[in-house]
């Protein structure tokens, strides 16, 4: 049996988000998949053109309504639910956009959701992380239910471009509710890369000892083009703001390079970094648990080592 997969596009009104191409790559691993990308926007033309170029996409649907100028789950979900009937699967990215939206769609379709799909074992069988990635569960969706899922974007490459799917506009099938209104948005005011998506992250722990010492990490991060993170202990001690917290109760990240400086490696921190490609640990305690997961470890005084690294870069 072939699969008809509907992918909800994430975009900012002009540019298709990278997560959508990763959803397409995930969907393409489902056997005999016919992939449709749906763009809800106030003016969908530019985003639809980008979606149509993704390799593996058969068709792009656009639903245009002024309310879709902003990605409101309460407005988008009824459109998707109303259009979902012909599809066996409905996928969205496991970004804050998809995490917000997809369960609302699943509930309208009265079906369970598979969150954070990291691998497709069969058209109805998926692997996903639980306990912050400390266990991987394989789940199966029954034959009589639609598969609704979010795709863990870190687990899939982006689909290539060069395709030319046809684009069809459909009239909004649902009248969006008026009870939810967009007020404003503000991008994080940092010149540094975003912690969640940065390729390199420099993180500091309690051993930094002060907010002033944390400035040393910012300098190093700037030299490396890295984002700055912090352990919960450093945040609790007031050395770094909350939004930098990496760990199970903070941000779960998967950078190419993670440098843990003065971080002992509490379980809740390690669960937030286990998907990092390369972990570097600098700590004066050779018994610190961080060394159990580090690819490269350096035992020593961070207040001597960090300035030396900075000088050598």
């Amino acid at each position: 049996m072939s699969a008809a997969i509907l992918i909800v596009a994430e975009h900012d009104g002009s540019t298709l988000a990278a997560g959508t191409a990763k959803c397409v790559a995930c969907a393409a691993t489902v056997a005999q998949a016919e992939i449709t990308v749906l763009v809800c926007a106030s003016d969908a033309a530019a985003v639809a053109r980008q979606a149509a170029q993704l390799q593996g996409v058969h068709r792009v649907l656009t639903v245009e309504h002024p309310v879709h100028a902003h990605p409101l789950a309460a407005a988008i979900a009824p459109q998707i639910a109303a259009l979902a009937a012909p599809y066996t699967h409905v996928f969205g990215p496991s970004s804050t956009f998809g995490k917000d939206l997809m369960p609302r769609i699943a509930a309208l379709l009265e079906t369970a959701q598979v969150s954070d799909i990291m691998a497709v074992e069969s058209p109805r069988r998926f692997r996903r992380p639980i306990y912050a990635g400390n266990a991987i569960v394989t789940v199966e969706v029954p034959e009589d239910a639609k598969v609704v899922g979010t795709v863990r974007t870190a687990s899939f490459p982006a689909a290539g471009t060069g395709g030319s799917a046809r684009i069809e506009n459909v009239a909004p099938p649902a009248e969006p509710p008026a009870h939810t209104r967009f007020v404003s948005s503000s991008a994080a005011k940092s010149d540094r890369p975003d912690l969640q998506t940065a390729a390199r992250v420099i993180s500091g722990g309690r051993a930094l000892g002060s907010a002033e010492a944390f400035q040393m990490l910012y300098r190093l991060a700037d030299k490396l083009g890295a984002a700055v993170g912090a352990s919960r202990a450093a945040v609790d001690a007031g050395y770094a703001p909350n939004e930098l917290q990496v760990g199970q109760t903070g941000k779960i990240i998967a950078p190419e390079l993670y440098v843990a400086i003065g971080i002992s490696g509490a379980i809740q921190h390690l669960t937030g970094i286990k998907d990092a490609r390369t972990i570097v640990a600098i700590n004066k305690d050779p018994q610190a648990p961080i060394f159990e997961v580090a690819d490269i470890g350096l035992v020593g005084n961070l207040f001597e080592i960090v300035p030396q690294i900075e000088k050598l870069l």
Partner: protein
Amino acid sequence: MMKRIIVGIKRVVDYNVRIRVKPDGSGVALDGVKMSVNPFDEIALEEAIRIKERGLAEEVVVASVGPTDCQAQLRTCLAMGADRALHVHSDTPTEPLTTARILLKLIEREQPFLVLLGKQAIDDDNGQTGQMLAALWARPQATFASKIVLAEGKAQVTREVDAGLETLEVDLPAVVTADLRLNEPRYVKLPEIMKAKRKPLETLSVESLGITPRVQLRTVRVDPPPQRQKGMLVENAAELIAALKAKGLLAS
């Protein structure tokens, strides 16, 4: 009508526990493991209590779906400052959609102006219940909240999204899910734990709410995550940089 907030909480493995996958792949070993209120739900409850302390709500009702043991977590919530607790008894785990259906029944009974939940539970990491509840209730949702400002019949909620912060205005009643930065939950003091023992805790059955639990997803197996390769130790900053260059992580 009393201005009421419902807070949904889940009993989960404490965030400091290093969990172990059972060798037969049937699940995660939970025997004798320390259990706690899901940290994000604790933040949701703290926010509800603060709203009440500001005089913007009259009652905070905490609700949980789970086995008899989850009454311990409900008592913790009462000690934190919730006024009463509702325990919907279920010995088997409920899928988020069933949990949402149960919460909707409680909403119909309690008529809250605000429902607060954590953005996700740290066991299953589904992150679905709040959004599903809002959909079934046909009411607004504001997920990943880092700030909630209440006005007459409305709420402005600032959300932590990938691009930064987004502010929505929602009509009440609405469902809001708490993110990490919303607040820092208070510590419970001993006198409050004693006092909480006398606060009302009502137990309901899933069936008495007219709900038949549905299990849709079948767990095929649970595996431990792939192990990381054993790393190397370097002696100094120069060796570290050389090692990073050798891995292609720094330009040489």
